[in-house]
């Protein structure tokens, strides 16, 4: 019996020839990644010193900090948190990346998505580095372990594989594919497993789209997602890789907990009904629902192809009077590319409110709703209160459907504008 890519990566990180799912091992993360957030980084920095008497992390080059939430700061306390982060980074020799965009995306741009590497973060959306064959796990407060110990304890996870076949219809996007996976395998279909995505369909889904799919793995219950490296992902990730590692892939006879084959060729645009990321339906079921606000952005969506399709829909048209459309590119580099392509011009001309990259629109710090309002969103989540009032509602849709809703002020199939 062969090994999965996750088993191979963890075997190397554990310094062992081979590990199997279920083994409890001590592994050395190649990268320890975090964004500054109250209760996480500030507490970790304090605990390191006060509870464990540790002045310096081991191997500062393995660590990376991002300032992407609360950017720009609106209170002195927020700015103080950022200052603590900057000072800590300087003291430790750990890079702090600020105002470059949403960390999970910027991490990929900066080479932390090294094929074959093992990374930890407290936030589970770091799973998107799996697009490039990196095993990246969100461990919540356990991240402290990676700041006070060189090796962390981990139970080697099982892997559930999803084989995607077929080619998407125009106007159906990677975002629809992910939520369809949840619909097919269930909200606990890959619980505590690594979600390995493969299949011929990936040839027709861009790396950006693959990052959309891998970023949301947690909503299948998975602890992360990963894709075996291929020519295209290596061409992106290898030249910028921060450590020199041999990329690894699952063996053909690897031991999977389950293998699901999902044909995406007949998929229609989906919607995820509030208030749970488990409620995937066809968008047509709720067409006509009045909508006040649209959000195109987040670490899951908001990349060049997402804004390109929105611009195609909005070009030469005007969004509905009174509708608030927020477009937030996933990184500043993506914003630059979209700007060069003229996408930003088209979006602004149609009435979109385009802002610099930040996480703040996704978790209800900016662009919030009041009681009774409804949004279409490409944010990560649709739970109550995520974007303002607990009595507002979030319908998750693909980027094209956000743009189309902005034109009509209601949920609508975007393909009529394409």
């Amino acid at each position, binding site marked *: 019996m062969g090994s999965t890519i996750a088993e191979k990566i963890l075997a190397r990180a554990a310094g062992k020839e081979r590990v199997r799912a279920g083994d409890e091992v001590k592994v050395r993360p190649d990268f320890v990644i975090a964004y500054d957030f109250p209760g996480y980084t500030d507490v970790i920095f304090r605990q390191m010193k006060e509870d464990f008497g540790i002045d310096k992390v081991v191997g500062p080059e393995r660590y990376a900090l991002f300032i992407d939430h609360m950017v720009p700061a609106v209170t002195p306390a927020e700015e103080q948190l950022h200052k603590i982060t900057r000072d800590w980074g300087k003291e430790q020799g750990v890079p702090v990346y600020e105002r470059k965009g949403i960390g999970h995306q910027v991490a990929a741009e900066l080479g932390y998505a090294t094929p074959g590497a093992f990374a930890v973060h407290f936030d589970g959306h770091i799973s998107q580095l799996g697009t490039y064959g990196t095993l990246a796990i969100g461990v919540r407060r356990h991240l402290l372990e990676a700041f006070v110990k060189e090796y962390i304890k981990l139970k080697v996870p099982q892997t559930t594989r999803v084989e995607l076949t077929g080619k998407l219809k125009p106007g159906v996007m990677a975002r629809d594919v992910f939520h369809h996976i949840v619909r097919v395998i269930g909200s606990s279909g890959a619980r505590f497993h690594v979600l390995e995505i493969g299949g011929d369909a990936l040839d027709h889904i861009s790396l950006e789209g693959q990052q959309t799919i891998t970023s949301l793995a947690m909503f299948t219950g998975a602890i992360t997602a990963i894709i075996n490296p291929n020519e295209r992902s290596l061409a992106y990730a290898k030249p910028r890789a921060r450590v020199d590692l041999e990329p690894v892939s699952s063996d053909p006879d690897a031991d999977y907990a389950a293998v699901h084959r999902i044909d995406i060729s007949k998929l229609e645009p989906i919607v995820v009904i509030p208030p749970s990321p488990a409620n995937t339906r066809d968008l047509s079921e709720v067409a006509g629902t009045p909508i006040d606000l649209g959000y195109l952005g987040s670490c899951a969506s908001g990349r060049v192809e997402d804004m390109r399709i929105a611009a195609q829909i909005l070009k030469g048209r005007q969004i509905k009077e009174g509708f608030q459309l927020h477009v937030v590119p996933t990184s500043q580099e993506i914003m630059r590319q979209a700007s060069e392509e003229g996408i930003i011009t088209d979006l602004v001309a149609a009435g979109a409110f385009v802002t610099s990259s930040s996480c703040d629109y996704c978790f209800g710090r900016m662009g919030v709703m009041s009681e009774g309002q409804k949004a279409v969103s490409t944010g990560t989540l649709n*739970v109550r209160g995520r974007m303002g009032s607990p009595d507002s509602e979030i319908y998750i849709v693909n980027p094209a459907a956000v743009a189309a809703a902005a034109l009509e002020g209601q949920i609508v199939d975007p393909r009529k504008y394409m």
Partner: protein
Amino acid sequence: MPLNTLRGRVAFIFEEEDFDVDQIVGVKNIKLKDPCELAKVAMEAYDPDFADKVQAGDLLVGNVNFGYGHPHYPPMIAMRQLGIAGVIAESFAPGYWRGEIAMGFPQAACPGIISLVSRWDEIEVDFDANEIRNLTSGKMLHMEPLAEGDRDMLENGGLIGYLHARDKEE
């Protein structure tokens, strides 16, 4: 080190699958930090008299994928303040599981638990025998054994104690 067997009444059964624990205190209260304030608002939507009925050592029971969504810490801070000693569910969402184990809060995954118990039954959670016993009905179920790391963490009262214990061991 043995993990103490929990013994208490089933104070509430969350029957909803994919239960979003934030609902325990309500999203409008999710930013509260004070355990006493959190305890006051806990369970408003489910049983407004919950705080009066519950006693130290009581347990919660959940359905499949308990803790799904985007779980925050305040709901279980509230529950611990009220004396709740642990949660037994059909299964848990990993993010929630990991977060609460790091707090040293006992959890047990036990397929079949929903049909094993009724509210206010007295039950025992035996982490050594991996058994959950309903003392009221006399029925018993096997629970999933804890992973070694999770068990270490519970034995040491949570993440900080666990890491100190590793200091000694290394």
